[in-house]
């Protein structure tokens, strides 16, 4: 199938000369490189040097010339790579805000794909995709998952015994888990979290 398509595009007929750019595979590759670079820049907080119009136009041209699939899979690969990077550094949970910010910008640049290609080919919309990737790569990476849970339970226990804790941090983490969907919150946090106080209060009741 892809072979057929490629052939169709290499076949240029003068009468069907289109206004604007004619995209062949080489051009599509080049365009994707530009967009990939833009995604990296956004994650590195350098978006202020990018032109929204230019990148939107590039993404639009790719989708219009039936390279939507390439664009989408490229997006998934690039974003996964970044999240893998993030999951390696220590304070990954704090990067949540950054990821959200970047995700919104990427979604806006790729808006044409989101409105047209995504629904017609039954893909996951960009925003949801970003959340899913975060969940799979960060929250569900075994190391982070254990540490996150331990920290949360530890903090709550500390407060129960009268110590001061960073409530803002807890609130942000819980909010993040909620944003990722109720199932994430329930499975990753609520269930183990509800088991802990049982032990805590059992111990307390035996003291007195």
């Amino acid at each position, binding site marked *: 199938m892809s072979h*057929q*398509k490629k*052939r*169709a595009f290499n*076949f240029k*007929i003068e*009468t*069907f000369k*289109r*206004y*604007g*750019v004619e995209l062949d595979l080489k051009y599509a590759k080049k365009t994707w490189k530009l967009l990939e670079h833009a995604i990296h820049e956004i994650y590195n907080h350098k*978006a*202020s*040097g*990018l*032109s*929204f*119009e*230019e990148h*939107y*136009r590039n993404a*639009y041209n790719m*989708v*219009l010339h*039936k390279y*939507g699939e390439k664009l989408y899979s490229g997006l998934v690969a690039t974003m996964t790579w970044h999240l893998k990077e993030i999951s390696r550094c220590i304070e990954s949970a704090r990067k949540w805000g950054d990821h959200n910010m970047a995700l919104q*910008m990427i979604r*806006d640049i790729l*808006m*044409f794909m989101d*409105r*047209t*290609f995504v*629904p*017609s*080919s*039954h893909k996951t919309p960009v925003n949801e995709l970003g959340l899913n990737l975060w969940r799979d790569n960060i929250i569900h990476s075994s190391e982070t998952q254990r540490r996150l849970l331990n920290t949360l339970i530890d903090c709550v226990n500390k407060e129960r015994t009268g110590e001061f804790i960073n409530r803002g941090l807890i609130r942000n983490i819980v909010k993040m888990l909620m944003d990722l969907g109720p199932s994430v919150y329930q499975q990753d946090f609520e269930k183990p979290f509800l088991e802990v106080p049982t032990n805590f209060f059992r111990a307390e009741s035996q003291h007195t």
Partner: protein
Amino acid sequence: MIQQRPWTIDPDLDVLNFEPDDIEPSIPLKKVPAGDLFEAARAGDVDRLSYLIESGANVNSRDRWDSVALYYACLAGHLDAARLLLQSGAICSEHTFDGDRCHYAALNLRVRKLLKAYEARPPPLGPLQGALRDTFLSCVPNRDSIAGHPLSNDESSSHYFPPDIVFFVQGRPIEAHRVILGARSPFFKKRFEEKWKDRQEVRFAREKLSYNALYSLIHFFYSDRLEVAVDDMEDLLEICKVCKCEALRKVLEKDIIHQKYAEYKALREVDNSQKRFILQGMSLPEQDRLPASLQCILQCSHLESSRRNSDVVIQKETWVSGDDLADVCIIVDQKLFRCHQVILASRSEYFRARLSRMADFLEGKDGLPGHSLPLLEEHDLSAETFEKMIEYMYTDGLTCIDPEQAEEIFDAASRYLLFPLKRAAADVLLPHLEMVSPAEICHWLIISDMYGVLKIREYCLDSIACNFETFANALEFRALLLVLPPLSGDSSLRTTLPSAPGAGGKTDQANLLDDLREKWLEAEAAELDKRDESAALFDKRAKIFSFSRSFVLTVR
């Protein structure tokens, strides 16, 4: 003694909830790939129906049995098809001829309930009015004032564009955008140019000014639909006098007199608090409606722009704010356009994202601090096309476009996610297509398939199918066949869908050649066995063409 109860319909039936299994039809819905509106409604083929509506079919037209499409959908009990028709503005009021028949024909209570739900609803707003109304209601304080508004939270937040003026009346806020108010009322325009020029909020201290009345007026400014409680009409009349909304004032004055007489005639005390007065923009003279008002503003902006364009080099001072209330400058093809953010943002999601992201990306920072406007640049677009496009954005109208220009307009409509513009441009282009050569029809078929302009695509396919022999001999048509993907060979359960992204179809299944085959069979109008024969004939011819395709490729 057994008491005889009169027989009534159980009122509980009305709210009966059906299990999902009951709703699903027991047999799969039939597909009518080439059917007209009525066949599609009767078969419940929602894909085909939405395709036809999208390509501009009139949902209220009657067939030779004097029936509307909605009648067939109700008769056959196709809820989804009926809902689609109703959403597209099919008339269903019991007091009309068509509506009465639909109610009478409704297969079951669910269909009836659906009809009832849509009966009280006013006709759908135009694209312009609808978009501006969504923007107005996306401001939280404005939405809160309508209890039980159907917009859910995320739905409305996606239309949000920050207001540039807030009014406080009787302590309650109304958020608004200057250009809309300025366009609709000379009073507001003058104030925004002078007294309120740099104000973010305006507080009205006068106790007499009614919040409800002002809210309905501002809502009317955005949506061209006035809805006001009868009790508030006197207050509204006062505001109209101040705001110099003459046309509206006249209508209101007349109606208030009517209301008074109605009270005289009524034997009992009339409770006006429940009664509401609803006015459609259509009943005002044309120059007082929303599109005309925005057209004035647009002309004003064009005048300002061209005055500044006449300077050979666009200098920084040229984009300071003028008296057209413009708040953004856009450069296309080295021409400057003064525009209004709220209108661009309401009409096009692209501009909404772009304007609200100006701080995050590279653009818009060239403007000097203080009185200068942000400056954006658009590429790959001619100034003429952009001018047509903003004319459409402001007025919903598209006049005198050159067929040469249509292609560029389709491109702009796609890129800026301004999908209704495609249909408007198609309507202008269509008469021109009646007298063009086969080569040009082929050209337009490719274009319309690419941009998903259904009406043109349908027309081209029809015209090729009806004159197949002429086209088969045309060089361009053969060349066209060479670039198209081959027949999929699968003709079961398929509807004609274009391959363009955003056309609402399933991209992976669309195939121009398949659709052409369908059209050809339709033109041949053969049934059953004959149809199979015709299909075989078409496939044979297509094979010959595809043979020549591989032939050409090997030669190359």
